[in-house]
């Protein structure tokens, strides 16, 4: 078996393939995106047929596609980031009652920090709420094995199972012994049965069964190999799980305190109670180390309290030894664990640094969104307007100097928030910006809401022909599937026309036309739309750059101040970084001295 250097997400994908997954669906979202991409690549590499993988239109669609396939007995995988679970929660909550036939794993990647997300929600808490078993791997190596166990458990219990890695695991790489033989599952097929139809009468029964099952599972999972106890101390215990287990091990190594008894929780729900009780009984105090919600901490407190044990349990909630939010680090944990153990530890002095430049992420050089935002900004200058943004690269339109995103909430929300603002504040022109992928994922419903209710908004579609933020995934407007098959390319202007909106379709890099289109749309009432069409610079690699005519350039710096393109630098005169510039010519159109061509 070959050892391969795999990213956590790649390990999860290969583990799922080894477990015999045959239908996989998801929606791109950092840090989960690479799982499905890896499956697609592996299918190519092995020239494998009979396995299907898709980018669904959103997470809800993905989960339902997978559920249907599982009803036939196929093994299925669904992938999303944690906020995607909010979108998919409607089918998932009911599916918990209905159950599945083929093993079904719902991978939800959490993002402590958050590093690339809107919230710090904890999927372990969602597991308890939805009553679904949840696996929480602590390393890419473990994730590769654990996802296979998750499929087995799912199929054994006929329930969807949650699998919850976090960013540091998804994007860490490790050498992994990969099985090249994939399990073959022969689905029995869909058997008609009233049990597939959810009804209150059925749900009463199903709910009761879930509670019984989860109680039994708490015992069964106490013997699960990745729920473990190590170390020999009879005084000091640490309870942890997920990537925090790796941090704890590193901290204990640095402190020379590997004797501490460590409880690792790989299945936060159902919580392995018998194992945890044994652990509680083997030590005098427990320090709970976990990012996000105090899931393990509450379980231990509940267990100790309800069984009359007396011991000290400290963590983040009651004793506030650890921060309630944010990502943890080995440094922080080394200090906290040393204090807990009463060990001497000199906290390394953070060096005193000179003032550093602040570097928020920005739109790429030549990004067509820059031109679109700039055109709207120019067109509306001096007029009372609100710019409702959305999720994607174009959220970065908030940065100076563009400063064109006034609100951003969740996928598709810009369109509907703009309607609310316009209803409550009639003297304001409400703009809604939406990207092409978001338009398909959850924009269309909001647009129909606007038309139906005669709401007053200017919709700006930023169509750059890709799901750019997550690294360039296809979507329904592209004409290609994740498996590289040609398919219908849905046309956004045609969709808008079909609901009665006549959009203005413009190339944003033609600044004059773009400004005129926005002005004209703003002057009308009702639902108006401007569709800016130009591909992301990472889709069609542009060739060519502009150059500065140093005789004409006065060095005023207006071009950079206005549009903030990273390829522009102002010294004595404007300078173009030829390795970044795409030749989009926006700066040339902004320069009042005609000094750039």
């Amino acid at each position: 078996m070959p050892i391969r250097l795999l990213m956590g997400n790649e390990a999860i994908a290969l583990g799922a393939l080894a477990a015999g997954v045959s239908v996989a669906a998801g929606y791109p979202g950092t840090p989960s995106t690479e799982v499905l991409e890896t499956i697609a690549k592996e299918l190519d590499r092995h020239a494998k047929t009979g396995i299907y993988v898709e980018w669904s239109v959103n997470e809800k669609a993905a989960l339902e596609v997978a559920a249907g396939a599982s009803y036939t007995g196929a093994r299925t995988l669904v992938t999303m980031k944690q906020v995607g679970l909010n979108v998919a929660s409607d089918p998932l909550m009911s599916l918990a009652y209905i159950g599945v036939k083929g093993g079904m794993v719902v991978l939800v990647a959490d993002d402590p920090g958050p590093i690339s997300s809107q919230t710090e929600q904890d999927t372990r808490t969602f597991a308890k709420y939805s009553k679904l078993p949840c696996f929480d791997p602590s390393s890419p190596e473990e994730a590769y094995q654990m996802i296979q166990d998750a499929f087995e458990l799912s199929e054994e219990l006929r329930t969807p199972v949650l699998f919850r890695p976090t960013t540091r695991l998804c994007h860490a790489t490790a050498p992994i012994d990969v099985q090249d033989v994939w399990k073959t599952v022969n689905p029995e097929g869909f058997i008609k049965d009233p049990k597939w139809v959810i009804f209150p009468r059925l749900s009463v029964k199903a709910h009761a069964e879930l509670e019984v099952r989860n109680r039994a599972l708490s015992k069964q999972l106490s013997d699960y190999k990745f729920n473990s106890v190590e170390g020999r101390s009879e005084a000091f215990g640490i309870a942890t799980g997920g990537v925090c287990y790796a941090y704890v091990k590193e901290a204990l190594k640095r402190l020379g305190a590997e004797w501490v008894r460590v409880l690792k929780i790989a299945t936060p729900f159902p919580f392995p109670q018998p194992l945890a009780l044994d652990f509680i009984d083997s030590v005098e105090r427990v320090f709970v180390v976990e990012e996000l919600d105090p899931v393990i901490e509450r379980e231990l407190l509940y267990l100790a309290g309800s069984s009359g044990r007396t011991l000290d349990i400290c963590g983040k909630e009651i004793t506030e030894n650890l921060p309630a939010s944010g990502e943890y680090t080995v440094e922080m944990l080394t200090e906290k664990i040393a204090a807990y153990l009463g060990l001497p530890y000199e906290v390394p002095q953070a060096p005193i640094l000179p003032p550093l430049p602040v570097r928020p992420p920005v739109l790429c050089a030549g990004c067509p969104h820059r031109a679109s935002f700039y055109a709207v900004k120019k067109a509306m200058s001096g007029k009372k307007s609100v710019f409702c943004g959305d999720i994607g690269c174009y959220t970065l339109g908030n940065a100076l100097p563009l400063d064109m995103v006034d609100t951003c909430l969740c996928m598709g929300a810009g369109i509907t928030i703009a309607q609310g603002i316009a209803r409550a504040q009639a003297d304001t022109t409400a703009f809604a910006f939406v990207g092409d992928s978001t338009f398909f994922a959850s924009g269309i419903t909001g647009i129909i809401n606007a038309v139906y209710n005669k709401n007053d908004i200017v919709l700006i579609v930023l169509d750059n022909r890709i799901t750019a933020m997550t690294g360039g995934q296809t979507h329904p407007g592209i004409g290609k599937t994740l498996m590289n098959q040609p398919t219908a390319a849905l046309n956004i202007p045609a969709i808008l026309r079909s609901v009665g909106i006549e959009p203005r379709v413009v190339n944003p890099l033609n600044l004059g036309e773009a400004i005129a289109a926005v002005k004209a749309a703003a002057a009308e009432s009702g639902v108006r739309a401007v569709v800016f069409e130009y591909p992301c610079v990472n889709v069609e690699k542009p060739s060519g750059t502009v150059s500065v005519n140093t005789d004409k350039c006065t060095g005023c710096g207006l071009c950079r101040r206005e549009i903030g393109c990273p390829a522009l630098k102002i010294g004595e005169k404007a300078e173009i970084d030829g390795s970044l510039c795409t030749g989009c010519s926006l700066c040339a159109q902004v320069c009042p001295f005609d000094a750039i061509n």
Partner: protein
Amino acid sequence: MNILICGIGGQGVVYASKLLANRALQRGETVHTAETIGMAQRGGSVVSHVRIGDDCYSPLIPAGGADIIIGLEPAETVRNIGYLKPGGIVAVSTRGVAPTTGGDYAPEAMLAYLGSLNINLIAVDAEQVFRRDGSYRNLNVEMVNAVEHLTLK
């Protein structure tokens, strides 16, 4: 051996760490890495951690734990200097990249700061790469090669 690679999104930090890690794997070593993937890749600060050896648990290098820092940009190198072991090696590209959101910054001040520390400082001239290739795109690979050449014999 812990190596930290830092720079700005778009400079190829992730690629550089994959290169280092795969070469270590081919030499038969155990290697773990952690990368910045996501929003920061659009011109923000980006860091990769490469950990070679059997005794690493955390995917990230702890503060004060890096033997080597490969810095593709002076200010980013300074930002991450707390990761360096006392007396560790720093290979830094001397070419500064100003933040696009405005505000000027002097890379010379960063290099002077690095020069004042008790470290093993190697300054790399990115312009040489530019003169050869007409772009800075291969700076990441050149710096990985240079550091491997220095440390792995």
